[in-house]
């Protein structure tokens, strides 16, 4: 109910702002909706959203898996941390644009280059978060698992992984928002489809209804994924905790 209200407030603000600014700069909601319907009817909207989503899914999975593994290793093994730390700092501070441009130059304007560039941008934050999580592991529970001779894999699953879960969730949450932002830049610079590409086209043609139609459809998809996947996942992970506010 409250969410609906805040959506209505958003629409009203938009409409009033468009009346004040003029339809050329900020088209009113029905104009944008019409543009979105046209794109939807031709199928282009879903094709482009689908292409972007596929890139997000691949890059996100790649970065999370690799980043978690590296972060765990760096948290557990001092040598790995020493070796990896300078790379980590470099990657953390490297602007996304540099990675994307270099990836396109070295690997060509290919799908692999785009996905790799997005994954590399997200990777270091996942590593840092998981490294912190691994350092915070409870040694007392490790000892318990050792004394009771719980096999390595079972111990990892039941003792280690639940302790890392909040860190994995945090890395996923912040990583997903990062990927949403970067994927459009990567598409704008070197892909022939996707939301980022369409926004680039709309920008060049100064087609503001089209630009907003794609931006808002994209935002809607992000919200749906957040509500349908990320939040239930987080709720499931923390079900053993006494209820917080």
């Amino acid at each position, binding site marked *: 109910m409250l969410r609906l209200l805040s959506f209505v407030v958003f629409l009203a603000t938009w409409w009033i702002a468009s009346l004040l600014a003029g339809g050329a700069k900020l088209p009113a909601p029905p104009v944008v909706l019409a543009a979105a319907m046209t794109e939807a009817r031709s199928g282009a909207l879903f094709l482009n959203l689908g292409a972007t989503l596929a890139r997000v899914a691949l890059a996100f999975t790649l970065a999370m898996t690799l980043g978690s593994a590296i972060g765990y290793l760096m948290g557990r093994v001092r040598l790995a941390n020493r070796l990896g730390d300078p790379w980590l700092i470099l990657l953390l501070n490297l602007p996304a644009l540099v990675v994307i441009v270099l990836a396109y130059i070295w690997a060509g304007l290919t799908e692999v280059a785009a996905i790799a560039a997005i994954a590399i941008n997200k990777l270091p934050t996942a590593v840092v978060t998981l490294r912190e999580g691994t350092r915070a592991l409870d040694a007392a529970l490790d000892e318990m698992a050792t*004394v009771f*001779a719980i096999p390595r894999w079972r111990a990892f699953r*039941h003792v280690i992984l*639940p302790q890392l879960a909040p860190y994995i969730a945090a890395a996923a949450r912040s990583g997903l928002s990062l990927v949403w932002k970067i994927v459009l830049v990567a598409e704008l610079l070197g892909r022939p489809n996707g939301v980022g590409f369409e926004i680039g086209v709309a920008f060049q043609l100064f087609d503001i209804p089209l630009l907003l139609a794609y931006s808002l459809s994209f935002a809607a998809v992000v919200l749906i994924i957040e509500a349908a996947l990320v939040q239930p996942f987080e709720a499931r992970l923390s079900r*053993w905790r006494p209820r917080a506010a």
Partner: protein
Amino acid sequence: MQLEVDIESKAFENAAGERQDVLAGINFTLSAGEIGVLVGPSGCGKSTVLRILAGLDRDYQGHVAQPAGARIGMVFQEPRLLPWRSVEENVRLAAPQADDAKLAALFTILELNAHRSHFPGELSLGLARRVALARAFAVEPDFLILDEPLASLDEALAARLREQIAILVASRSVMTLLVTHNLDDAVRLGDRLFFLSARPAKILHVETIDAPRAARREADVNEIKAAISRLDLANM
């Protein structure tokens, strides 16, 4: 089946880099069916002995011989349960081979039946201690290690739990090592009492109690305690 312990010395390096001797000579043997009790002032290194015997600390001078493949069940000073697993899952994780009937019997003795599906965060300390005991017994250990399992419980509950431990130990032939600073617990549960000195700890005195646990009357317990206090171990 027998446990042979001969720890010559054990030292820690503290944060300032200074060497601190913790153990200076702990040797005893323990047979199956026997309860050995380590009694000593707090901070004297009792838990360090247990950590060495549990295989958690290998950095010491000396020798510990355990029967090959002996299964260890341990109750730590804090319960060390997994907060994200239910009581039953906690026990089953340590003891995947335990069958339902045995677990049910164990939960009944420890009065945990009502709490099987609770999470550890929902339990009182006394209950969590009992779950830790259930976990240690569920693995059907050859070697049972109990580190102050009754500390900070009220007297009535400690007495009940002490009885439950006695029942469980009697039900199977197991070497048991109990650490406590409570002489009453030691005399009621132990077959042999090893009195440790302050740091660096060595064994000052071994008290053997011949009367079987079940046959020890209140008067016997008091008599043994009086005899021990006459030894004036604190000033040795």
